[in-house]
């Protein structure tokens, strides 16, 4: 595993281009575009305000920089550095901004979710979409970029609008049977739209592309419901994580539950492997404590950690959530399928130090990773069954069916490493510490 130098970035804005050739980082006002392999600066742009959100267009030709305070969006071109584009939302304000899948339209959500403005870079035209819903995930594009589903709320009822991204033609507009729509997501084959209700009611609805209700599923009533939803890459399974610490898997033929994965506090499943992270601090001799060494050599205080396999039955550390607070830290908050559909990684919020990996072929628990600190985020390698996770310290952990390993990231100043992104074209992950440093890890091991 090789590590490159440390670069500065702010607001955790660092994105690799979709074609994997460039890396764009934002530092306050400036947008720096580097070549991915040599890390040399290719372009340097200056925006009018500190950039809050930065996004590549799907064809890697343009970069969008959104400045929410001033309601501005600036678009830069990679091919023509002189080309400029500035979109001003005016006094209506700006809350979020994103590209459309064709890379030529920008969707701005105004303040108070008053409307969604669709700006076209081809025709300079503007379209408005009224009454968008302010929810966890109100807009979703299909994988092929042809259709867009938007959740709307009119007269205390939820509606779903399906647009054709070509010309923003409204294809379908139908009422959703949810009480309070919390999110919607297209299946990877673009034919089914999963729509789920807020946590006050466990209900997930499946609509086909043309707006017909295919099926609805509700596991139980009254208790807190769905927390997270994930489609499998082949669209065969729909995984629903809920507040009752269970993941239910629906199949795409009957839309009925085929199995449920439970996260018990004691693991007795004999086929599962429990990896426990064990930290060992290096022993420091008195002659090593010279000032020079203290300042220069951080490995003195860094802890080495390795994984040990614990015997079953194994106990999982559980943190009881506060019953009086809303959105309690209990339940499955994160689900991710691996690229080949073989594995599912889940995280239960009241067992924050553990990550559970399930085998989708056998529909059983495969491995449990126990870390020394709560797991912050995890992401699958887009090409092979390998999982990378980080817990807020200077290490990155990798799991694959062959085993587990922890890698020390050479960060200066002991800054903890925080969220991960995985680039789709390249087998690399970009690690972002919480402070203003950036580390890129190009993949070097098979």
């Amino acid at each position: 595993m090789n590590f490159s130098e440390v670069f500065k970035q702010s607001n955790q804005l660092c994105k690799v281009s979709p074609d994997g050739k460039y890396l764009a980082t934002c530092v306050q006002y400036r947008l720096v575009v580097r070549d991915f392999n040599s890390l040399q600066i290719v372009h340097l742009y200056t925006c009018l305000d500190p950039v809050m959100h930065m996004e590549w267009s799907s064809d890697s030709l343009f970069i969008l920089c959104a400045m929410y305070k001033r309601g501005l969006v600036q678009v830069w071109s990679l091919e023509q550095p002189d080309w400029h584009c500035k979109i001003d939302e005016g006094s209506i304000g700006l809350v979020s901004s994103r590209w459309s899948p064709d890379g030529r339209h920008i969707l701005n959500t105004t303040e108070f979710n008053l409307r969604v403005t669709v700006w076209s870079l081809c025709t300079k035209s503007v379209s408005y979409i009224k009454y968008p819903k302010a929810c966890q995930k109100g807009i979703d594009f299909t994988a092929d970029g042809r259709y867009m589903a938007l959740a709307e709320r009119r007269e205390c009822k939820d509606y779903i609008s399906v647009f054709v991204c070509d010309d923003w033609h409204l294809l379908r507009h139908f009422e959703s049977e949810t009480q309070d729509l919390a999110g919607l997501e297209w299946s990877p084959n673009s034919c089914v739209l999963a729509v789920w209700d807020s946590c006050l009611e466990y209900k997930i609805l499946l609509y086909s592309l043309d707006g017909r209700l295919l099926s609805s599923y509700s596991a139980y009533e009254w208790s807190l419901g769905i927390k997270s939803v994930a489609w499998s890459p082949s669209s065969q399974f729909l995984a629903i994580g809920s507040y009752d610490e269970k993941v239910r898997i629906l199949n795409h033929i009957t839309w009925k539950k085929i199995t449920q994965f439970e996260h018990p506090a004691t693991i007795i499943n004999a086929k599962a492997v429990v990896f426990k992270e064990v930290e060992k601090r290096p022993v420091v001799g008195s002659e090593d404590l010279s000032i020079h060494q203290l300042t220069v050599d951080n490995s003195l205080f860094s802890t080495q950690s390795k994984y040990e396999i614990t015997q079953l039955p194994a106990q999982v550390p559980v943190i009881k959530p506060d019953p009086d607070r809303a959105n309690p830290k209990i339940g499955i908050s994160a689900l991710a399928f691996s690229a080949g559909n073989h594995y599912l990684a889940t995280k239960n919020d009241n067992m924050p130090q553990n990550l559970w990996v399930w085998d989708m072929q056998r529909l059983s628990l495969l491995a449990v990773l126990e870390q020394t600190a709560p797991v912050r985020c995890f992401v699958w390698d887009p090409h092979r069954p390998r999982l990378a996770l980080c817990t807020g310290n200077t290490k990155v952990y990798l799991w694959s069916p062959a085993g587990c390993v922890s890698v020390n990231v050479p960060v200066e100043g002991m800054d903890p490493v925080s969220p991960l992104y995985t680039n789709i074209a390249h087998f690399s992950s970009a690690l972002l510490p919480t402070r203003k440093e950036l580390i890129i890890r190009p993949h070097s091991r098979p």
Partner: protein
Amino acid sequence: KLIVYSAIIWGVYADDLFVLVLSPQEVCSLGLTGVSLESESGGLSAVPVLNLLYEVLQLQRRAQRALHELETQQLKSGSDLEHLQHSTYRLKDQLEHTRRENSGLHEGERQLQLKIKTLQNCLKSEKEEVQKLQSIISSRATQYNHDTKRKERECTKLKERLTQLLMDKRDKKLSIEISNHVGRSDGKRGLWKTGKMEARHEGEMYRALLSDYETRQRSLMMENSELKKVLQHMKEDMITILSPKKPCVKTEPADDSLEQAVSEGEEEAGDRSREGLEQSCEQAREQLTNSIRLQWRKLKSHMERLDSQASLVACQEREGDEVMSRKEREEEMQRMRLELQQCKEFIHMQQQLLQQQLSSPCDEETAALLNDCYTLEEKERLKEEWRLFSEQKRNFERERKNFTEAAIRLGHERKTFEEDRAAWLKTQFLNMTPFVDQPEAKLQSTPPLVTKSLFSTPRAAPLKMPSTADLYRTLHLIPDSRYVPQIIQKWKFCHEFTLTSFQPFTQVIYLITR
């Protein structure tokens, strides 16, 4: 022998003398015929008396028997009575006991009933509470919904007002500044929005859906046909498994089932061809599944039967060979365990040695030590040889010393001999003619010179000093002398050492012999 007097009967019966006094009334009362004692003959006739006696005896015996019987009866009844009394007491006690138990059980039952009732009441109340809570929840939910809807309506009104205001004000217009138009990502030109476009979009959407359905249906069909094939094969296999066992079957019912199976198999072979044609027909599918189920059930029962038979046979076998095989097995096990232990130890040792070899230390001391270990034998040998050598050297030194001493002594003796010779020659010469003065003088001079030169210090000597070779020769150290001392032979192989060390000795010898 009876002697009867008027009312007294004397008799001897069985050696017992008995006297029976009876009055005639008594005799009558006894039911015996009175006997007139006054008989015609005037004498007493014994026959009626005997008869009477006999009857009395009989009576007596009967009475005794009756008494005996009565006594026994009385005893019996007494004991019976006792027994019955005891039993009545016991039964009374038992009855008391059971009554008490019964009452206790009744009490318990009553209490349990009470408990049940209370629990049922609790359950009911809990259920009611749950229902109440649920209703409360639902009512609250509706209430919240209503409230949220109200708030939402307010909110939308606000939003609309806000949009209105923003639209009206128009102070900060929303705008886009763009250097130049950008081409579309797919390179095509934009099209107008017409009804045709809409229809095209719809068509595309339906096409996408249809293609998805078609792919799914295709995959499902393939899966279906594969599964059907598998089922067919399974069925055929099951038939073949069940049928060839017909000749070696053990139980009768199996026969029937097998025959049935065979016949069915034949039937189904005919069906199979039909099934191939009507693949999607439901009847064919049902038929297939039913036949599979039937075969499977038969196979299962057959397997169960075989299993039981096998276990029986195994039991029998086990009982026979149990004793022998167990012992043998145990012995073998022990042997194998021992072997295993030995092998393990060996391996462990080897491993340790290998580790030591491989993990050879980096520092030089131990490396040197190790190297030393290997060359130990050689070292020892060399030490031994060295010791021998040094011993020999010491011997040589000693002998050399002796030899030098001997040489010194010899020198001394030579000197004395020369002096003697010189003196003799002198005397001889002096004894010879007086003409030989000069040579005598010479001779005279020479010996004193010689002696002088021998005794004087080397500095003042004009005479040539005898060379070391001469000295050696005279001292018989060089091999061209008459005899070679054994010591020289010994010194031959290391004469380098001795010659080099002899140099100072020769100087000393010079000093001494002068």
